[in-house]
């Protein structure tokens, strides 16, 4: 038995409606408890801000394309490297760091749980291997279904149950957590060098539309009672005028789940563009935020960009090719048979580019215009918009109008005309930031029930203590102090154990991977469906028996079983 008492913690715990209450947090064997014995280890938080461990609900940190981003970028590896020290392994890289680099930097910032944004099922084993080498965060994997042939056939046959059964089999085979759709239909079209340009275009050879894929998958998701909703990267990412596609997509979404949203729309900044070309691009954040304000069934994340170098990487292969044609930078592509695509290209977001300035403004506008912070979470689509180490600056921007004004003054002329950023006075408070960085994520991902994102009795003792006293600081003017505080915790505690102290990792990690196993009646199990098996063996290049990820890849796997309503 191990016991810990965090004393004098100034707690914000939005899910329990605790706001800046100075209190003690007793921990036993990794969980929050009522009280501990006098022999417990003690950490004195000295009245500093104490939050549930940070949760990233959309970040690209592990797996085939992330590693290829590293592989092709020795220039980035040089940009951030540390030697082996104490319990810390060597790290390399700035915007696509090595797995230990990601893990240590997240931990220093108080993050204890991360959802990998996109895992191709065929390459899931790779993602899980990297999860194991990202030892200080509990991990979850969004699983890609956007170009899945069997799914598209079920959609065409209007067979939701079949679609649900395919999802169930795949998630349990690859130890995935949730349904991810990236440019649904578009990644299959990219198999021929094509794309879809609206949610009503037919996918070549499959005769289904993105809208049909999205609505069927939402229905299937709810039939399976998955903890998270469908997680969608909308069609037409990064194209001027794409806000119409985004709004049309939002209109497809029914409100069918009482516990959470029915659609998680990711990196919406990239999907909120007005105009017709790069020359007349403008912000449509107001239209998007208005729609989200009216639709409690939708949660989005910002997809904020920050100025500087980074790497774009996504399953959206055609989008990356468009970006390549724009930048003529090095371009990688990796289509995955029967499932999805992917692409990678480095970018530089510059304050001298009007397009980039508009993008920067849109992300902030989305957050500031969304009334309920549970509906707009703080993310950069790491590393697409910016590496996650930029989160503290984004917090500063959201909490301080003055900081935004100072930044706006450095942007290229025209930003003010094309966006509303300068007119927005809202300054977010500590509670809203806590929601946008952990409580909102826990709720949206459906892991609050697993003890994540709050300090209820029995919750996992993932605790971040930041070196700042909320009542002594005015974020609107002292935003620099806020940024510094969120960069490095005094203590990051993971499952009751101090893992990071003032930015240094002090123990070997022992993370868990959450995955979902929806139980489906035998007669619907696709593994018993001769047609499914036959097509699998004919068209995949891996035998069906060799496809599932063995338990050995999840040394501390946590399976969430759901009972499907099929």
């Amino acid at each position, binding site marked *: 038995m191990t016991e810990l008492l965090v004393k004098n913690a100034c707690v914000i715990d939005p899910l329990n409606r605790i706001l800046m209450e100075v209190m003690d947090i007793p921990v036993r064997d990794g969980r929050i408890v009522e009280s501990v014995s006098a022999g417990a280890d003690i950490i004195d938080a000295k009245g500093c801000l104490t939050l549930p461990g940070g949760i990233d609900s959309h970040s690209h940190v592990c797996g085939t394309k992330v590693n290829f981003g590293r592989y092709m970028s020795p220039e980035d590896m040089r940009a951030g490297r540390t030697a*082996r020290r104490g319990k810390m392994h*060597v790290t390399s890289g700035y915007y696509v760091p090595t797995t230990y680099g990601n893990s240590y930097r997240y931990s220093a910032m108080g993050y204890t749980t991360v959802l990998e944004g996109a895992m191709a099922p065929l*390459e899931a084993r790779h993602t899980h*291997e990297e999860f194991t080498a990202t030892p200080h965060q509990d991990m979850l994997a969004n699983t890609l279904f956007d170009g899945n042939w069997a799914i598209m056939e079920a959609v065409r046959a209007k067979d939701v149950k079949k679609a649900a059964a395919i999802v169930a089999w795949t998630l349990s085979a690859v130890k995935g957590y949730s349904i991810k759709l990236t440019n649904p239909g578009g990644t299959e079209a990219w198999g021929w*060098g094509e794309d879809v340009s609206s949610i009503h275009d037919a996918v070549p050879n499959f005769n289904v539309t993105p809208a049909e894929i999205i609505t069927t998958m939402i229905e299937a998701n709810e039939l399976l009672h998955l903890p998270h909703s469908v997680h969608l990267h909308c069609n037409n990412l990064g194209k001027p005028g794409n806000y119409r596609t985004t709004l049309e997509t939002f209109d497809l979404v029914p409100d069918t789940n009482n516990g959470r949203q029915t659609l998680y729309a990711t990196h919406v900044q990239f999907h909120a563009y007005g105009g017709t070309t790069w020359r007349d691009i403008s912000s449509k954040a107001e239209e998007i935020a208005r729609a989200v304000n009216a639709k409690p069934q939708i949660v989005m994340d910002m997809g904020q960009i920050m100025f500087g170098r980074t790497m774009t990487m996504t399953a959206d292969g055609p989008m990356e090719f468009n970006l390549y044609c724009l930048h003529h930078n*090095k371009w990688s592509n990796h*289509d995955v*048979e029967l499932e999805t695509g992917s692409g*990678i290209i480095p970018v530089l977001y510059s304050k001298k580019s009007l397009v980039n300035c508009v993008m920067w403004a849109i992300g902030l506008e989305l957050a500031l215009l969304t009334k309920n912070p549970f509906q707009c979470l703080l993310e950069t689509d790491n590393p697409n918009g910016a590496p996650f180490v930029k989160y503290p600056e984004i917090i500063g921007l959201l909490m301080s109008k003055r900081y935004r004004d100072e930044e706006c003054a450095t942007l290229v002329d025209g930003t003010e005309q094309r966006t509303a950023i300068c007119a927005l006075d809202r300054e977010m408070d500590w509670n809203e930031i806590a929601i946008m960085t952990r409580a909102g994520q826990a709720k949206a991902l459906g892991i609050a029930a697993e003890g994540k994102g709050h300090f209820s009795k029995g919750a996992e003792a993932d605790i971040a203590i930041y070196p700042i006293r909320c009542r002594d600081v005015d974020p609107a003017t002292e935003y620099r102090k806020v940024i510094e505080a969120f960069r490095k915790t005094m203590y990051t505690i993971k499952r009751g154990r101090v893992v990071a102290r003032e930015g240094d990792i002090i123990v070997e990690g022992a993370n868990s991977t959450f995955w979902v196993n929806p139980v489906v009646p035998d007669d619907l199990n696709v593994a018993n469906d001769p047609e499914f098996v036959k097509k699998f063996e004919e*068209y995949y290049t891996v035998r069906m028996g060799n496809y599932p990820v063995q338990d050995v890849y999840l040394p501390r796997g946590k399976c969430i079983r759901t009972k499907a309503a099929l």
Partner: protein
Amino acid sequence: MIIKDVVCPFCGCLCDDLDVEVDGQKIIKVQNGCTLAEATLTGNNRLPAPIRRTANGWEEISYDDAIRETADILCAADRPLLYGWSSTHGEAQSIGVHIAELIGAVIDNTSVVCHGPSILAIQEVGHPGCTLGQVKNRADVIVYWGCNPTEAHPRHMSRYTTFATGFFVPEAQKDRTVIVVDTRRTESAEIADEFIRIERGGDYEVLSALRAIVRGKGSILPREIAGVAREQLFRVAEICMKAKFGAIFFGLGLTMSNGKYKNVRNAIELTDELNRHTKFTISPLRGHGNVYGSNEVFTWITGYPYAVDFARGIAFYNPGETTAVDILRWGECDAALIVASDPGAHFPHAAAAHLAKIPTILIDPHRTATTPLCRLQIPCTMAGIDAEGTAYRMDGVPIRYKKLIESLYPDDADLLRRIHDRIREVQGA
């Protein structure tokens, strides 16, 4: 007993559809595999126990002694090298990297003598690729450049390309056009619809000519380019541009001939160019079963796919300086641990000769051409035969090797873990 869906560990194809008949601790029959697979799985040239070189031959020693001696040699070295890794699983590779971190070693894999130049090219211009099933199901044009899959990757064509039945190419070979480019008429060239025979060292020029044609600048080309008639290149460029899905595969003919990584860069940029007209992909034909896995594992731990130098504490990478062949041929390296590869057979003479001068330890199940260069050899299991573990196919698809038979040999990951722990002990003291 017959074991189904066995993964062959020999080459980068990692065919996973073999049926293997096992009798106790012996593999007696291999079905579906090529001749290389059969030889790999049924071969029996195992070293029975660890051996140490003496003044007049070899003596058998215990695993404990071998591990202790290995750790001592590595700890005492100023410029240790950990090399190989391509014929074992990711679990062993990963511990290898951690040992390198611990002792400030250079760690390198067999890419240095195969597709290292491809990696350099990719680091300059990227890599438009795909998984092999994408080619199998879609490709109507296949290009093999500077490689001879019929002999080196015998089932590549039947499982993934030319002869494979795919969803959109149900008639397999009838639906596909095969182009082979090489300096000599290989077995693979025999089945080509177009065989482009180029003069030795002419790859770069021919690739440039094709790029010019694809960009609409073909009129500037001379009549003949590196021994190839201009008309043939126009014909081939048209086949490529009219393809619905084209796939280029290339081998050491491109990476290890004049121009090296510049050839590969040119081939990738030709692929980029073709993507403006249709869909095209390009992929290296990787040799060793899990060489790509060593690139992957090195990358997620260190940031670099090969040639990683920990001498400065941080991970440092500069191929040509931190590559195994180079630190050996300059005589810089003063101790080497070779795992799951055979530099005695593949390295340039000067590099191999230096291995014989320094304390070299080999962890490998078999007596190989490296054995005579060593001071110590420690036999272990063979990944995919008597050990399971992760391997990455040439296209990045991770597959789990199966354990087909029980053996008394230790897994190389366990050996390395013990060496790692022993080094920590020595360093702690």
